[in-house]
């Protein structure tokens, strides 16, 4: 039982990383980025293809993360150029179009057959008493810790972080005050894309993947970010780990095992209902 919980840390870490990426782009650029996971999947598949043609594993993974960052930066550029004044709903809807676009391009390039991704450092593990920690678990948990600390520090303590928050609240005002809006937005998107690429690369070796199932990692990520109210990085991270834990423990309970893949939907519905609990009819309509 304990080992199953430990095994969920890899997925949990990836969900958390993706969730934090969503919070990041939402808070800093005012976009709910539906294309977040598919960009990561695109990067990871690039890495798989590179690895298959003989590029060393580490280099291929780095290349994948760079590709994810570049694609994401491209989306950021589009956002900054053409949708800077648009509402959050419009900008988020644009990312849905981008999601479908990247999905289809990925299918064309990579096909839809399941692939195997070699594990990060296969065979490397740390055993503490009866608990086994695999290399991918350590990388996932470590990655989350580093990212969480970096985001918290960046948003609260740096001038750039504060400017970015200003940009997301009032883009025009921020620009009038001299904020280099376009550069900053593109930079945020690039970082968020790199994080998505890394998250998907961490989770990919733990399961049999096809491109669509990796792109659909957006669902647990959205559920985690929603629980964090799209603001609180800490809560998002905990939620990511929590969703993964519930999914894996669900596999042990025969009555619910078949339905465990709908966990993110249940979480999303539950969170939405909870958040609406104080709304009165007129306002919530």
């Amino acid at each position, binding site marked *: *039982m304990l*080992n*199953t919980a430990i*095994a*969920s840390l*890899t*997925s949990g870490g990836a969900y958390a990383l993706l969730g934090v990426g969503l919070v990041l782009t939402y808070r800093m650029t005012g976009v709910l980025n*539906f294309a977040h996971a598919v960009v990561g999947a695109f990067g990871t598949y690039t890495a798989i293809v590179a690895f298959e043609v003989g590029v060393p594993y580490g280099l291929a993974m780095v290349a994948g993360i760079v590709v994810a960052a570049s694609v994401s930066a491209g989306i950021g550029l589009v956002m900054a150029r053409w949708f800077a004044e648009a*509402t*959050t*709903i419009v900008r*988020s*809807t644009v990312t*849905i179009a981008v*999601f*479908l676009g990247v*999905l289809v391009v990925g*299918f*064309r390039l990579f096909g*839809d*057959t*399941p*692939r*195997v991704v*070699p*594990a990060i450092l*296969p*065979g490397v*593990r740390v*055993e503490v008493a009866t608990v*086994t920690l*695999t*290399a*991918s678990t350590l990388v996932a948990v470590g990655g989350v810790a580093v990212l969480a600390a970096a985001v918290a520090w960046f948003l609260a303590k740096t001038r750039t972080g504060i400017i970015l928050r200003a940009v997301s609240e009032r883009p025009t005002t921020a620009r009038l005050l001299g904020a280099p809006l376009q550069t900053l937005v593109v930079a945020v998107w690039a970082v968020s894309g790199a994080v998505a690429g890394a998250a998907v690369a961490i989770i990919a*070796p*733990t*399961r*049999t*993947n*096809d491109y*669509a*199932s990796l*792109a*659909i990692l957006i*669902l647990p990520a*959205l559920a985690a970010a*929603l629980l964090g109210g*799209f603001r609180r990085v800490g809560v998002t991270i905990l939620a990511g780990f929590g969703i993964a834990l519930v999914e*894996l*423990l669900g*596999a*042990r309970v*025969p009555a619910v*095992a*078949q339905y465990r*893949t709908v966990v993110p939907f249940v979480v999303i519905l539950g969170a*939405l209902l909870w*958040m*609406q609990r104080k709304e009165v009819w007129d306002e*919530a309509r």
Partner: protein
Amino acid sequence: MRRITTILAVMGIVAAACGGGGATEETAPGQTTTTTTAAPATTATTAPPATAEPIKLGSVNSLTGQIVFPEASAAAKAVFDRVNAEGGIDGRPIEYLIEDDAADPAGAAQAARRLVEDEGVVAMVGSASLLECAVNGAYYAEQGVYAIQGTGVDPLCFASSNISPVNTGPYLGYTVSLYFASEVLGKDRVCALIFDIPDFRPAMDAAIQQWRDLTGKELHFSNFTLQFTDDVTPFVLQARDAGCEVVVSNGLDVHYIGFMQALQAQGIDDMAWVGLTSGYTADVAETLGSIGAGSGILHVNSEFEPFTLDSPVLDDWRALMTEAGVPLTSFAEGGYLAATIMVDVLRGIDGPITRESVSEALLALEGYEHPMIGSPYSFGDAPAHNPNRASKFLRLEGGEWQLATDDWVVLPTG
């Protein structure tokens, strides 16, 4: 927050678009292609190529989509091409019509009707499809058309009066694998991890029941809820915690790699694993060998003479497949065998070769021996056919498949 609420409502649409459209992106049904093989191959010939009125044979295959089976029909085509180049059947060439059903029921139904009614094929041979038997079994019975299936996949391939596959299939194959685990490996605590494919569940239950009846044993632990894209680690841990000595699982080739990776990551090396023929590929051995996983643990069954070994039984098959550019896989063995049986049946017919005479010959076909299979092939008039009841088992050793059993493991009847 209300903005987010609104946006999330849209998400449902995206999920639906992705779930439905994503998986079948390149597999628009109806895009079936027909390949005729009337033209003789360019091999050196001892007899003039056949030029008389062709004998039409058909096959329905899943050639595009998420799970594809291209090798069986390609292998059958290679056999027929050679027959044609050597003069055909009494001077009549074989015209082999390959249709793609794109793993779509409507596509499979249309393909069968095109072959049976428009083309007037005398029989079906070498088909390999995800759902063809389920869709067309009743139609073949109604039309009096018989099929030597190259690779039977869906349960109805093994439950139709008009279809007799050359392969064991994933159900009886599962019974053989359980039998191997308990009787040949001699393990006591036999466990089952099974991917949940809703329509296949009753056939899997029947397969396990057959093992119970044969051995009087019970599964120590089972989980039938694996999904194709799951992280398999929790299931592997569950089996370990339950004290399983051997796990028998189904799945695609990539899943066996996933299982072995998970075992390696968790440092579990005292639990044996038995898989189906789907795991018996050169890729699985190579991938696992390159990361050093699964060695001495993973066993797979081969429903035909194991193709990775240097068996003289396979000399002709290997030469022909290599020449025709068909990948050397179990599926190619199935297609080759189905076509070879069909050629022998056609050659054995006195008088004109028509749908009626071919059907009659198949209904009389019993005890067809071939060194590539461990139990005789038969057709006959039984209401269901699953004649291949024998497997050889292989074990992964340092990235290579080694024979785990020299002789065929033959499932006792009754």
